[in-house]
């Protein structure tokens, strides 16, 4: 739901109209909230209807990696940040490290048991809580059923099958491709997550940086191999050019998270009934492991005057059944709240996906996602360097494995230059 560099999430829809602050006995407070995901405004509207004392004012900002995070950080720096912001788990450490977040443990702890434990860990450091989890990003493979039939391929069970399918499609039609290469740190991180590797860890009060670990190298070499044979394209996923190619039948599938579903259905309504979801391809046959791409928390930004009320709203947004149902339907989240995972909204067939109950696949994926992944404290830099390198590799300058190596080095250098302890 976060870090989608797509134009889709940019549709500037402002929240519900401001109907004048009604101060009921001077007790009403207003809390500002900046988010990037589509549909958050509807949850805010639901809250404002039922909570006259705490008014939430929602503003749509660009997705994190295309300026949203910089905007929040700059606002914190300037001392005029909103109370609440939407931040992906991947960039939360970064926000904590720059001192941009309030510690909300005293207000949030009561809600701890309502969430899947690893999402709570992702939103905290030790016993200090910095955010309220909203969702996770279990992954699967979206594919065009009609085109798979046309090229006589079935959803690949392993990455080897996937490469074979890519070959088959491209041989049959030189202008068609099975998919696109990983475009940024979040893509590559998610694929590494599935392969069982880790980029960051902490021990003895030191960061370990292992972006060039064996699993990431394996993933990088795999995609470089497909790229060398020209069996995949390097279009950024889920943006204008990508949608156009999908429409033209030049791209057949996408390995991504649950939140991609509404983006696909809203942008390609004419392809309704021609999509299905299958589990991610595996590194070894018979496995069921999945990666996690994205997922975010609602954080309280530094300088917020009403952290208690802000936390109250954030907890409500992630757990209230009406709000979560809205977020499932309109934002395409997979809830981080345990109660949310029992809602009827995550257990029904989808017309767009040909009547398939796609949540079956995502639930299995979520259950088979390892929970020990840690994000580092300089993800803005990691993302920037990785994106640049992968973009160039896609254009034939440098390679994906070389990018991984150079990002490992630039990340260690960036962390050391800030005085962070980096150890082996």
């Amino acid at each position, binding site marked *: 739901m976060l870090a989608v560099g797509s134009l889709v999430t940019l549709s500037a829809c402002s929240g519900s109209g401001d109907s004048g602050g009604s101060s009921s006995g001077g007790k009403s407070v207003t809390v500002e909230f900046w988010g990037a995901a589509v549909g958050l405004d509807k949850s805010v509207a639901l809250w404002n209807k039922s909570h006259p004392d705490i008014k939430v004012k929602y503003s749509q900002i660009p997705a994190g990696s295309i300026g949203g*995070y910089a905007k929040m*950080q700059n606002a914190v720096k300037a001392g005029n940040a909103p109370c609440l912001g939407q931040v992906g788990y991947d960039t939360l450490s970064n926000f904590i*490290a720059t001192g941009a977040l309030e510690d909300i443990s005293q207000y949030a702890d009561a809600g701890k048991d309502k969430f899947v434990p690893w999402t709570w860990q992702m939103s905290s450091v030790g016993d200090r809580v910095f955010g309220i989890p909203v969702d996770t990003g279990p992954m699967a493979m979206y594919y065009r059923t009609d085109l798979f039939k046309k090229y006589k391929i079935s959803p690949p069970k392993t990455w080897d099958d996937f490469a074979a399918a890519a070959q088959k499609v491209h041989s049959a039609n030189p202008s068609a491709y099975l998919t696109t290469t990983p475009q940024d740190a979040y893509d590559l991180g998610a694929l590494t997550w599935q392969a069982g590797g880790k980029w960051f860890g902490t021990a003895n009060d030191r960061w370990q940086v292992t972006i060039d670990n064996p699993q990431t190298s394996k993933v990088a070499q795999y995609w470089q191999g497909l790229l060398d044979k020209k069996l995949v394209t390097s279009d950024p996923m889920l943006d204008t050019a990508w949608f156009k190619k999908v429409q033209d039948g030049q791209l057949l599938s996408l390995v991504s998270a649950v939140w991609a579903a509404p983006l696909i259905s809203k942008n390609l309504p004419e392809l309704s009934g021609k999509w299905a979801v299958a589990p991610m391809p595996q590194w070894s046959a018979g496995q069921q492991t999945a990666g996690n791409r994205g997922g975010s928390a609602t954080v309280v930004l530094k300088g917020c005057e009403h952290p208690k009320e802000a936390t109250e709203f954030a907890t409500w947004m992630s757990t209230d059944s009406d709000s979560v149902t809205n977020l499932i339907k309109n934002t395409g989240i997979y809830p981080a709240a345990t109660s949310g995972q029992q809602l009827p909204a995550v257990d029904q067939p989808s017309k767009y996906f040909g009547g398939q109950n796609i949540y079956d696949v995502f639930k299995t994926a979520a259950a088979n996602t390892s929970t020990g992944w840690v994000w580092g*404290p300089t993800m803005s830099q990691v993302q920037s360097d990785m994106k640049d390198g992968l973009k*160039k590799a896609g*254009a034939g*300058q440098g390679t994906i494995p070389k990018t991984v190596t150079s990002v490992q080095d630039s990340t260690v250098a960036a962390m050391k230059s800030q005085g*962070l302890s980096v150890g082996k």
Partner: protein
Amino acid sequence: MATRTPGDALAHPIAGSAAKRIPGRGHTRSAVLFLAPFGLLFTAMLLAPIGYAVYQSFFRTHRSGLGLGPSTTVFAGFDNYVTALHDSRFMSSFLRVFTLGIVQVPVMLGLALLLALLLDSRGAVFKKVFRQIYFLPYALPGVIAAIMWSFLYAPSVSPFTAALRHVGLEVNFLSDDLVLASIGNMMTWAWTGFNMLIIYSALQAIPGELTEAAVMDGCSGWRVAWHVKIPAVRPALILTTVFSIIGTAQLFNEPAVLSQVAPTVSPTYTPILATQQSADINNYNYAATQSVILALLTFVLSFGFLKFTQRKGTFA
């Protein structure tokens, strides 16, 4: 981009008689009064931020351990500057705009001068129309123009690429070899008209007697241009060069927009982009350092050029 109006610099394209007035006491007071609003705004909007950036550049944020506790700001001396000068990406961004400027600025100003001379020539027809046409690109907002060009360049939609393909040429305007030339072309397109107008105004100010005398002496059109007109518009040429140096050093719009479609345009493609990226990844002190270095270099280059041209012969 430098978009200041040329103002007084053009009022005397030819050595005017700068009448010396000795200000009286009353004059001083009213001068101060008139200058105050400007002085206040100039201090608040320009001097103060510059001072703050310089101050910031001598500090750095220090964290320890995992960096998840509060950070401290420590005095760094020239550390940030040393880092910047060893930062290969930052340095190559300078080299890039320098390479671009060395080629693009002369080409653009040569073109602007040629167009201005053509407009100013006796035989020119539809002067007004042509002047408008040349100036039109400058009237478009820079970012809008850049977005338009990015569509014209992007291999999948470019009409040029498609047309060239028809004659059997495979050209990618955003490839590593061509992208800098493509950016240069965008800048030339956007700024030639603006510079042409400045030069043209200077041409208009040349007294008719001068050109007439030259014609009487048997000068043809081109020779009048070479011997009379071009020397007369020298100050305007110097002014447009200085504007262009400043503008090129601060190149931002074109690469920022092209980076969306061109894999070769990195987030550190030009000095300003590199500075912005440092701010984006929360390294504000380093971003301040980079801005100071960029400002100094721009100043040295533009001022150096001015000094250089003034030394070479009298400044008309």
